């Protein structure tokens, strides 16, 4: 039975096969005019997500989502569990391909056509929900590895740190308050310090857009405040997208808040507007 269904799936007539579609194999129908390395933000937004849908085994994690992030903006995204926040980040960073819709970085770069490492290299940095650093390397080495540089095989083999790069690492160490731990193996850092190290690694990449997934989970009050300071300081030079559950934290940093629910945007506005929106109240407080 299952095989029969598979055959039917292949033989469907209402669908154009991937290899004919322009998107996957641009050389078939002429190259797209994507200028590599230049992120065009002249129209304002740095990230354009339009009509994006993602489903896993029939479950729609993202449903016709349209979202724009302006250049230099600090945007908070909130939403109940399963609203599609992490999936959205997966799509932006190339981990998951959308079923439908477009994701553009600047006006020219189609992120759905790029790999994780290419997306990272054009300037999108991501902090995971579960803090992930390189545990066997020192804090210093973690930052060195993340540093914006030629990351292909041969240059990496012969790479040596220049004084300038060393200064850059010191500067970031300062920013994330880890200067005195720089010789420590990252596995030995506390949870909060690991979060910061990961943020520091993002900064080393010179990203234009930072995607930060739950930066203050498991942090003490004091650490949370310092993180808020750090993130608001980054906005302006960078565009920052923060996904967070901690409402106090969101209130303390947010200028614009987007509420996601069941894979699409439910509301968008300042924290006060959003909190007084009856639909948002319903979603958060239950029926």
């Amino acid at each position, binding site marked *: 039975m299952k095989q029969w269904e598979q055959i039917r799936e292949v033989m469907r007539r209402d669908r154009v096969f991937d290899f004919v579609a322009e998107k996957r194999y641009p050389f078939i129908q002429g190259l797209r005019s994507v200028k590599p390395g230049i992120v065009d933000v002249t129209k304002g937004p740095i990230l354009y997500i339009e009509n994006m849908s993602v489903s896993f085994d029939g479950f729609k994690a993202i449903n016709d989502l349209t979202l724009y992030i302006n250049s230099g903006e600090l945007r908070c995204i909130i939403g109940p569990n399963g609203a599609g926040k992490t999936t959205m980040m997966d799509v932006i960073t190339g981990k998951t391909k959308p079923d439908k819709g477009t994701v553009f970085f600047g006006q020219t770069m189609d992120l759905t056509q790029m790999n994780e490492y290419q997306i990272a290299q054009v300037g999108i940095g991501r902090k995971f929900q579960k803090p992930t650093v390189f545990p066997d390397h020192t804090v210093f080495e973690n930052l060195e590895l*993340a540093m914006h540089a030629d990351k*292909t*095989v041969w240059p990496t083999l012969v790479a040596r740190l220049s004084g300038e790069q060393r200064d850059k690492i010191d500067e970031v160490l300062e920013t994330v308050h880890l200067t005195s731990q720089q010789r420590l193996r990252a596995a030995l850092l506390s949870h909060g310090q690991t979060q910061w190290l990961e943020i520091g690694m993002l900064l080393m990449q010179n990203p234009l857009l930072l995607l930060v997934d739950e930066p203050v989970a498991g942090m003490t009050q004091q650490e949370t405040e310092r993180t808020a300071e750090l993130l608001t300081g980054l906005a302006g030079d960078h565009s920052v997208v923060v996904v967070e559950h901690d409402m106090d934290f969101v209130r303390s940093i947010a200028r614009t808040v987007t509420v996601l629910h069941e894979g699409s945007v439910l509301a968008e506005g300042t924290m006060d507007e959003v909190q007084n929106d009856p639909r948002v109240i319903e979603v958060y407080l239950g029926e």
Partner: protein
Amino acid sequence: MQHNVKQPNNQQYNSIMARLFSSDRGGKLFLSLLAALAIVVPICNLLVPEGSAFHLSTYTVTLLGKYLSFALLAIALDLVWGYCGILSLGHGAFFALGGYAMGMYLMRQVGERGVYGNPLLPDFMVFLNWTELPWYWYGFDMFWFAMLMVMLVPGLLAFLFGWLAFRSRVTGVYLSIMTQALTYALMLAFFRNEMGFGGNNGLTDFKDILGFSLQDDRTRIGLFLASTITLALTYVVCRYIVTSKFGRVVVAIRDAEDRARFVGYKVESFKLWIFVFSAVLSGIAGALYVPQVGIINPGEFSPLNSIELVVWVAVGGRGTLYGAALGAGLVNYAKTYFTAAFPEVWLFALGALFIVVTIFLPKGIVGWVTKIRNRRNTPAASVESDT
């Protein structure tokens, strides 16, 4: 008690040697040992008269040379397993391919001295009534060409295999099984007479290498020295790789592959190149092995060999390079002893060894020694961590 503070190996070192060995005591010891062997062994074999207690028999020299080529193979595996986390259960295949390339050269050197006296065809081909040399045997009468193939054939196979596997993001146990299948398939292929590699007898009855008779003690010593020097050079090159930024990226991939990818590294390329380099080293190890033992047959492709190799590295200690070499030496010494004294016990001993090491010495002998030393250096801390 873990040692908390790593050596500052991200400092800008004044010289490259300092970068390679400043925090590598084991490596310095290992290289000194090799140097000592390179001096003592030839003297004890060639200069010390046979009756003396210090005389080393040629058999022992050959045995040591064999261990050294195994040590080289173990270092190659450690590079991919210990540093990059790719558990290859088929590294024996690259070793055997290198060995076959060397064997083909040695076969062509036999010339008219074979049993059938055919100037061009090796004995087994005459025996199979072949009249022409297969195309892939051309060029193997030239030493440089054979040496090129020793590196190129395993390297190309690893490139092809790795390119397909890593690009499809095959990792962990699935990759291990695939490498195992690879070596098994090659074994079956090389068993076939039609392949033109001597079938299940393999290649043997070698006469000389570069004009020197393989039966001569001095040639044996020459091969032993070649093994020692190659091993030492390999160690230095591998050490350069693991202390470079490339080496740190590779360890980063082992520990947090996704993070490495999102930081902007093309993980597949890094895995591929370290895998290829490791395969080339394995091929060289095979080429050193064959003239010393005097035979190469499809048994070298057997999955069991590759698994034994993993045991050597596990016993010695992963991720240290010299630990792998140490493990190769120790386990093979034990094997030589056991298979002579109690032949039926060896496989059980090997299995037991692997279990013991996995449970009690997860970091191998090197890790165990380091732990003891750290405990001695910080007695107070160890009391705390024990209670």
